[in-house]
């Protein structure tokens, strides 16, 4: 025994120290805050479908992901290794799709905008081979699952005029009968941006159309940008495509004297609507008061505009404002970070993000305008000097 003392000493040192460390970190409190939504008024059941995601930073080194829902607070490090490994690579919604359609989802990547789900169809479109240079031609990777008979159609097609584009990003996928529509944002090699709609015939497994819906332009005195107005539920189905087009006119190139005195700029916004069926583009004639407001969300029939004071619903069919709802004054205006609003099932879920003031969560009924629930984000103790808690996502089941 005595002859082995060195071996015994090293083994004891290792087993005791490392053992104690892992046992202790398994049972001891991890020093992370418990975050809860404290009820101010209304019905707590309205919190049920809400999940708030964010990150908790300590110093500038530690960054913990955190999720708050009705059950309480979950930190990233509290999850088991296997759970983190399984979930870490994908968007929450894609994970749900993977669980529901394990075979179909196999080998499919992309962001959540590559998917569309309805009661009987799950469609996927992505542009592959463009992240690694020299991988060969960029092409569309298309797959459609017919949920009723569990049949999958999948094929790949080269992107038309692919040599022209530096990059092609899928922004949305829609489907009508047997035709799949893939909305993309293309970046031509010679600059600018274009929004395309590619049509695919699913039974024939072929591409049938390529329409340019809108294009952006940068000139010396005028810049035009466009952004697709997206639904916060990115897998939802829509009949038409809506763009917000912004034109900036200025005397000087403002990149060169940013920070310094800005030349007077004229910013004009307008909304463009594209109907895939008629292949027609037209301007949306919005009331003056709405044009410069932020769009909060959209669904198939309605655009939701909002400010800190009110939420306005605009019907796309009749092109009329259908309702204006006042936001309670307790939901105060916050600084630049603004707030996050999600609209689901005729309810608006709003979260302020100002780190200084106590953050508030609000659930509004969009038909009656009543406040269904109002809550205050509550921490065990105030966030310390070097720490920060930042929320970046509000999701509603």
């Amino acid at each position, binding site marked *: 025994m005595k002859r082995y003392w*060195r071996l015994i000493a090293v083994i004891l040192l290792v087993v005791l120290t*490392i053992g104690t460390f892992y046992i202790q970190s398994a049972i001891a409190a991890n020093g992370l805050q418990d975050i809860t939504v404290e009820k101010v008024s209304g019905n707590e059941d309205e919190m049920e479908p809400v999940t708030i995601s964010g990150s908790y930073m300590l110093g500038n*080194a530690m960054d913990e992901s955190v999720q708050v829902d009705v059950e309480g607070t979950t930190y990233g490090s509290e999850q088991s290794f*296997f759970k983190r490994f399984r979930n870490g690579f994908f968007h929450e919604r894609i994970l749900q799709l993977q669980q529901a359609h394990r075979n179909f989802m196999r080998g499919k990547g992309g962001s959540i905008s590559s998917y569309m789900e309805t009661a009987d169809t799950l469609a996927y479109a992505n542009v592959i081979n463009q992240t690694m240079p020299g991988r060969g031609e960029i092409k569309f990777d298309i797959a459609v699952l017919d949920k009723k008979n569990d049949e999958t159609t999948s094929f790949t097609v080269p992107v038309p005029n692919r040599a022209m584009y530096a990059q092609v990003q899928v922004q949305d996928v829609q489907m009508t009968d047997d035709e799949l529509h893939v909305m993309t944002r293309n970046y031509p090699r010679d600059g600018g941006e274009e929004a395309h709609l590619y049509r695919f015939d699913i039974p024939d497994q072929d591409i049938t159309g390529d329409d340019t819906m809108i294009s952006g332009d940068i000139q010396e005195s005028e810049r035009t940008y466009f952004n697709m107005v997206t639904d916060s539920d990115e897998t939802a189905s829509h009949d038409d495509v809506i763009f917000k087009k912004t034109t900036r006119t200025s005397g000087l190139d403002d990149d060169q004297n940013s920070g310094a005195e800005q030349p007077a700029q004229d910013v004009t916004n307008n909304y463009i609507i594209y109907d895939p069926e008629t292949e027609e583009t037209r301007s949306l004639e919005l009331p003056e008061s709405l044009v410069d407001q932020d769009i909060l969300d959209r669904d198939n029939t309605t655009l939701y505009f909002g400010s800190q004071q009110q939420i306005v619903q605009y019907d796309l069919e009749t092109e009329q404002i259908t309702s204006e709802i006042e936001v309670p004054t307790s939901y105060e205006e916050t600084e630049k970070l603004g707030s996050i609003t999600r609209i689901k099932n005729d309810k608006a879920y709003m979260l302020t993000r100002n780190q200084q003031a106590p953050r508030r969560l609000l659930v509004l009924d969009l038909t009656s305008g009543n406040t269904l629930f109002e809550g205050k984000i509550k921490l065990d103790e105030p966030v310390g*000097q070097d720490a920060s808690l930042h929320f970046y996502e509000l999701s509603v089941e």
Partner: protein
Amino acid sequence: MNRFLKLVNFELNRFMNIYLVLIALTVIVQAAGVIVTANAYMDKANQAINEEMLSAAQFIEQYGAMSFLDFARGLWFTGPIAVCAAALLFYIFMIWYRDWLGKNTFIYRLLMLPTARLNVYLAKATSIVLMVLGLVSVQLIILPLENSVLKWMVPADFRTDMTVGQIVKWDYLSILVPQSFTEFILYYGAGFMAVSVLFTAILFERSFKWKGIFLGIGYAAISAIIMLSPLLATAFMDHYYLYPLETFGLEVGLGLILTALTLWMGHYLLTKKITV
């Protein structure tokens, strides 16, 4: 088993002096480092408060509060860890080559021992792993002590406190001390595999001399390609069909097979091909 333990103990003995020096170096340099870093911060704070007339709160706003990571990022902390890592990496080679060096080649006696030659191989690998874990343990023991010294030297207003659990999540420390025990087993299992691949590469060189160098490098390269093959597949195939947990299972499987193959190859070289 008894023979094996004897060999491990023997290998530990042979490196014990240098090993103790490494431990002492770590403890002394890091202890000095905490004191120097904390003093430097407090000097700066005092200077700013007395000469530039800043209040304590203004100073913290400008320069940030002191946390353990300010020390952990510095050379005082990382230096000894790097020296220990380099020393053990070097010793992975020396644990074999020292037996061939010198007047009376010691390997001759080692291989003549009345025990399976694989035991010699395994004892060397085990002692390397034990020594690595030993150094990690020493670091885990002195971390809370250093943390206390910091708290003792810097007033509470000027610092952000971190627990040891939070400190080890930082950067490379999270590789040395993984977050969960599962990851601990995985990381150090991979470490053991890497050590055994290097050992077998060394034995290739010892068996075939010049030609063996290329065989050894080739063996290590093939091992790396095998382990990276799922990653290469994602880069070179249109579709990568496996889910993350399946890839994980595949990697664990590949790792176990490769380790077994490497040990068998080491055993084969030691018994059949080695030249003294």
